[in-house]
């Protein structure tokens, strides 16, 4: 049934009267399209309406939020943004966004570089212990973080890194996210080796081959790694919750949680407008790179 639309519509082409089977198939197809549209629209509304409502509510007055489920604000106001931006702390939201960047930027760069190196090693070289290491890599994909979290905390405490951003991004400099390594390996395996071999014959060493031949071809994969890491890091909550204790250093995710706790019960528009702002970076990144996202998920499989 799924592919009936793929069948060529022969009856029109050779002008013979349609057989009963063809008629049945055509009717089925039309009915099935209609049902699918209705379903898709209803479910689509459920999916998207909460987000529409959120954006609308950010521009409403508090009394309007409580009185109408309709998303469009009757008298749009920036009051919520003005109030929310100031926060209950000595810092405004811009400060917290900047803090997030101090985590995100080193983490994304470190992930891209270390994952590319490691994936190149796994996909293009034979070396002693490779099989075991690769098995470990796959096993860590399934290892729940919950079991390593406490000793990691103790380790960073020993190093004197508590209340700094180091615990949040240093692990990614040493290919800490097995998932990304795996994704790049999968991508590399699909790229033919001829170009690299030609470069080697011309006298390039492996590092030159990696930088000038492999990395340009890997760019789509590296970009999706960066995008995923960007969004996951922006969204990370538990990491900063454990490691960052001074308000001055809070990233957006923690600042947002703080603002719920600190705001009066009925001052919703201030919180909802900051919620909108917190979602904007991820949404922008997603729409800029939608295609590579969906490809990345279907090739590597992903959390979320």
């Amino acid at each position, binding site marked *: 049934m799924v592919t009936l639309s793929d069948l060529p519509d022969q009856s029109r082409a050779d002008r013979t009267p349609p057989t009963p089977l063809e008629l049945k198939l055509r009717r089925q197809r039309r009915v099935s399209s209609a049902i699918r549209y209705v379903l898709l629209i209803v479910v689509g509304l459920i999916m998207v309406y909460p987000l529409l409502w959120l954006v609308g509510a950010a521009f409403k007055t508090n009394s309007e939020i409580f009185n109408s489920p309709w998303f469009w604000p009757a008298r749009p106001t920036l009051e919520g943004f003005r109030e929310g931006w100031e926060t209950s702390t000595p810092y405004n939201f811009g400060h917290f966004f900047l803090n997030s960047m101090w985590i995100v930027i080193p983490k994304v760069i470190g992930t891209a570089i270390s994952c590319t190196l490691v994936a190149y090693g796994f996909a293009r070289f034979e070396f002693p212990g490779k099989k075991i290491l690769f098995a470990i890599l796959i096993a860590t994909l399934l290892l729940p973080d919950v079991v390593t979290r406490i000793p990691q905390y103790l380790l960073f405490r020993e190093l004197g890194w508590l209340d700094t951003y180091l615990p949040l991004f240093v692990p990614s400099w040493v290919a800490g996210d097995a998932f990304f390594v795996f994704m790049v390996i999968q991508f590399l395996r699909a790229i033919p080796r001829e170009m690299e071999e030609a470069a080697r014959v011309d006298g390039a060493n492996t590092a030159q081959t990696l930088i000038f031949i492999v990395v340009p071809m890997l760019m789509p994969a590296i970009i999706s790694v960066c995008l995923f890491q960007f969004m996951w890091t922006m969204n990370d*909550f538990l990491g900063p919750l454990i490691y960052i204790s001074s308000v001055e250093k809070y990233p957006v995710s923690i600042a947002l949680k703080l603002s719920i706790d600190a705001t009066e019960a009925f001052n919703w528009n201030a919180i909802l407008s900051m919620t909108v702002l917190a979602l904007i970076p991820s949404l922008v990144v997603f729409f800029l790179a939608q295609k590579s996202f969906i490809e990345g998920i279907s090739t590597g499989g992903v959390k979320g």
Partner: protein
Amino acid sequence: MGGDSKYLGLWYVSPYILGFAMFTAFPFITSFYLSFTDYDLLSAPEWVGLENYEKLFERDRTFKKSLSVTLTYVALTVPLKLTFALFIAVVLNYRLRGINVFRTAYYVPSILGGSVAIAVLWRYIFAEAGLVNMIITMLGGEPVNWFGDPGNALFTITLLRCWQFGSAMVIFLAALQSVDKSLYEAASIDGAGPWQIFRNITLPLITPVIFFNLIMQTVQAFQEFNGPYIITQGGPLKSTYLLPLYIYDEAFKSFDMGYASAIAWVLFLIIMVLTLLAFWSSKKWVYYAGDKRS
């Protein structure tokens, strides 16, 4: 690449070896050790043998409650989310005009994923004076106490995670699109109905991704933290107090590192056993193309 030393590849993977040793292997072993100790960060860990585990299973009623909430949550969330994801993937696997718009719309909530912002949004949508109750009242129903009632709170968090079915759906969709179309044609000419085709052709062919999604979603559901922490703080009456919340409280609020490690290990073993069970049972129900059994 002939002339290179056979250790060259090892240099490229060395960051991973270092990272794995420092941030995975070492913590993994340490947490096992810590689970047999009493450690409050002030003095050195003190070996107590099985005491933590004994306390967990014999005296700790919070643990019992938390464990049962966690199992309920996983048993509720994983099947619901996967069924929904598969259903939508089947509906989307069709040439309709504007299909890409739908795909994007369905995927956006998942991309925003575990973010705090979405949990905050949920908290306000399902609040007593929130959007959902407003719509229910408009339709003539009684408003529901979504988070205040211990019977509803966990389900509301399940709803949040089901709303984010997008990445499971995208994986299903990719698998559905790779099913050989000629099989469908042959079956429909033989007179098979849509449900028969789905049941006997589509479903067996996509069992590998069902298996993959099942494992990933289960491992993830057992570690759910952000939703209950932000939306309900584990309440009311601990009805959303999942094990990761309990571990967090024991470790980072009470600084009882040994006890928290023991809970973490119990959680880890549950996940492990279930994953192994899934792998073991997969021989019976997962079909791999090119496989002789069918």
